[in-house]
């Protein structure tokens, strides 16, 4: 490949690949498969949630009304914005504009951190209202046991999502240095593209979590 001479700083072709194209396609397919297993991983939780929501609609709707829709909506907007900046970072990496990659990576990280900050505030609020499942759980409702189940699933699902966000932020930070050094080019931007795919996936999980947890059945409580 002539790329070796054009981009002295570019990440090298691994020894077992024949071309940059093969390496890029392998990395991309690997990421898609990883996301496939992530869908099955979250899918188990969604399945549990859907089943119990269907079995105990009133207890779940009552508990769901305790969530703050304004904050949830704000966070949804923040995450969608971060998907845009991430997509711009991937675009910049394809054209090898290293300063732009870093700019958009940092913007994405700021938006991601904002999301987590709001989430932490929401968690803290639930703590003050004794809505954390466990011995201190206190909820005035017709079926507190199953409302507690809602809150357990709420924390499990949003917590697992937040954990994925934290991992994503770490990956974004890790990309900044090689991006600054100009290591990404049209031939080799697999890392940015892979992290981008991951970030969009985490956003999409939230797009499903938000209506399931915050929105459906609000009036029926």
């Amino acid at each position, binding site marked *: 490949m002539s790329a070796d001479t054009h981009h002295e700083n570019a990440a090298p072709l691994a020894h*077992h690949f024949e071309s940059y194209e093969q390496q890029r396609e392998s990395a991309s397919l690997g990421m898609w498969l990883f996301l*496939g297993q992530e869908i099955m991983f979250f899918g188990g939780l969604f399945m*549990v949630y859907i089943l119990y929501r269907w079995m105990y609609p009133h207890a779940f709707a009552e508990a769901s009304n305790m969530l703050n829709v304004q904050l949830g909506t704000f966070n949804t907007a923040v995450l969608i914005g971060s998907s845009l900046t991430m997509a711009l970072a991937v675009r910049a990496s394809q054209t090898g504009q290293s300063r732009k990659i870093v700019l958009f990576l940092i913007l994405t990280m700021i938006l991601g951190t904002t999301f987590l900050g709001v989430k932490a505030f929401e968690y803290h609020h639930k703590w003050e209202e004794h809505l954390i499942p*466990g011995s201190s759980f206190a909820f005035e409702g017709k079926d507190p046991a199953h409302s507690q189940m809602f809150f357990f699933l709420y924390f499990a699902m949003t917590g697992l999502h937040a954990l994925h966000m934290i991992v994503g932020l770490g990956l974004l930070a890790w990309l900044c240095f090689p991006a600054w050094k100009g290591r990404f080019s049209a031939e080799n931007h697999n890392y940015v593209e892979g992290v981008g795919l991951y970030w969009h996936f985490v956003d999409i999980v939230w797009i499903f979590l938000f209506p399931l947890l915050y929105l459906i059945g609000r009036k029926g409580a």
Partner: protein
Amino acid sequence: MSALPTDPVAPQPKKNYLNAEYGVFSWLLTRDHKRIAILYLFSVSIFFMLGGLMAVLIRMELATPAGDLVEPDIYNRLFTMHGVLMIFFFLIPAIPAVLGNFLIPIMIGAKDLAFPKINLLSWYLYVAGGLFTLWALIHGGVDTGWTFYAPLSTTYSNTWVLPVGIGIFINGFSSILTGLNFIVTIHRMRAPGMTWFRMPLFVWSHYATSLIQVLGTPVLAITVLLLAAERIFHVGIFDPKLGGDPVLFQHLFWFYSHPAVYIMILPAMGVVSELIAAFSRKKVFGYHFVAFASVAIAVLGFLVWAHHMFVAGISVYAATVFSILSMLVAVPSAVKVFNWTATLYKGSVSWETPMLYAIGFIGLFTIGGLTGVMLATLGIDIHVHDTYFIVAHFHYIMVGGAIMGYLGGLHYWWPKITGKMYPVFLSKLSALVIFIGFNVTFAPQFVLGYLGMPRRYHAYPEEFQVLNVMSSAGATILGVGYLMPLLYFVWAMRYGKDAPANPWGAVGLEWQIPSPPPTENFHEIPVVTHDAYEYEKPSLKEAPVVG
């Protein structure tokens, strides 16, 4: 299979993947798929011996009707740890992580798997998961059965459920990453001319296996996490007393754990396809059907899980649907068995050691598979549910199928992997001893189960003793059979004759490079111009060494 200009009498080069580097770290930090396969070979062997030790104790206890060897609590732990170690730490990784790891890149003409570092990470995750499980074992083990049914596992068991759960969770990611690596490798790393329908069937069956690993294992992971959360926080997801649903646990568990059966058996089927073709000197009959049967088994495997739950309170309608779907799995399985048999027909069959295992596999798998159809039938399943009939059935698939396939594969590729030949007579004898030992152990259990002996009890009524003594005696023979390869393989590594590049006169890219292969597998990526199993073309039998 490939047409490369080479020197037909090239001497074996002295440098190969085994002696390219020395020292502990050259192994522990290796990214060579062949060395990682060796790491797996050693570690799965250790877990196989530990799981086997549990089986020995179980069969000793069951030699007499009274519970006179171990306490009931200990017995529960024995069969649980036997299941956990054998399934998660031996059967699931054995063929893919050892033989698949070693052979898939070579068979498709690649220098390595697509992600060598992730391949090494998989091994470390496997070891970490194994250590967690051993830690629990040392502290007294776990008594829920390998199925971890709630609410016993979530609420009532006072044993080390959590560390074992964590061990299985971590090990699950090893399995997922191995599957992911294989799929990407098969899609993206095939040599020029190696089209999908020129791939050896071993690669096809691993492709199907990998799909299950990537799509099924995460569901087990989240199930184990929920189980752990319920144990720690006492929130009811599965425990009915806390508002949960124990049947939901069974659904989630079997959604992975039934397809997991196919993770264990599909790679063994891949091995058998290779062996049958090589030792009957014929193309596999109906190559496309055998290839698609693997994929069909993987897909159907995801639709049958509730046949484990016919007595768990699911509706008759659901049970009927799952019963019919389960029987459908027999179709692609039978396609394979018939096609192997048709391959043998008019072939020039030779009875080398690997072939003995392959023939053993076909017979035992057929018995295991047909009893599986019996069990998919609602009426029979309710009669024999939770009896030794089930135990016999799945051991015919797991031990008679998967382990026979694994041993057959090891005997077939051992000269390639280590560059050494093993003693012929001893290896044939061991195949015979294992076959006899296996049948004497597990055939009586079909009868025991049909007569009503329940599984998972340490004591039983006296009328069952004769058959149980037979079974325990068979287990002893089986144990001897398993020790023999262990000993002569180790012996052969040091004292065996040097293996030629192609000791069986087989076709396939792996037989056209030296034994053991060089680190890079191929100095030049081969160009493939033939289908797999071109045994009818005599020029390919003496295929040149292209290392």
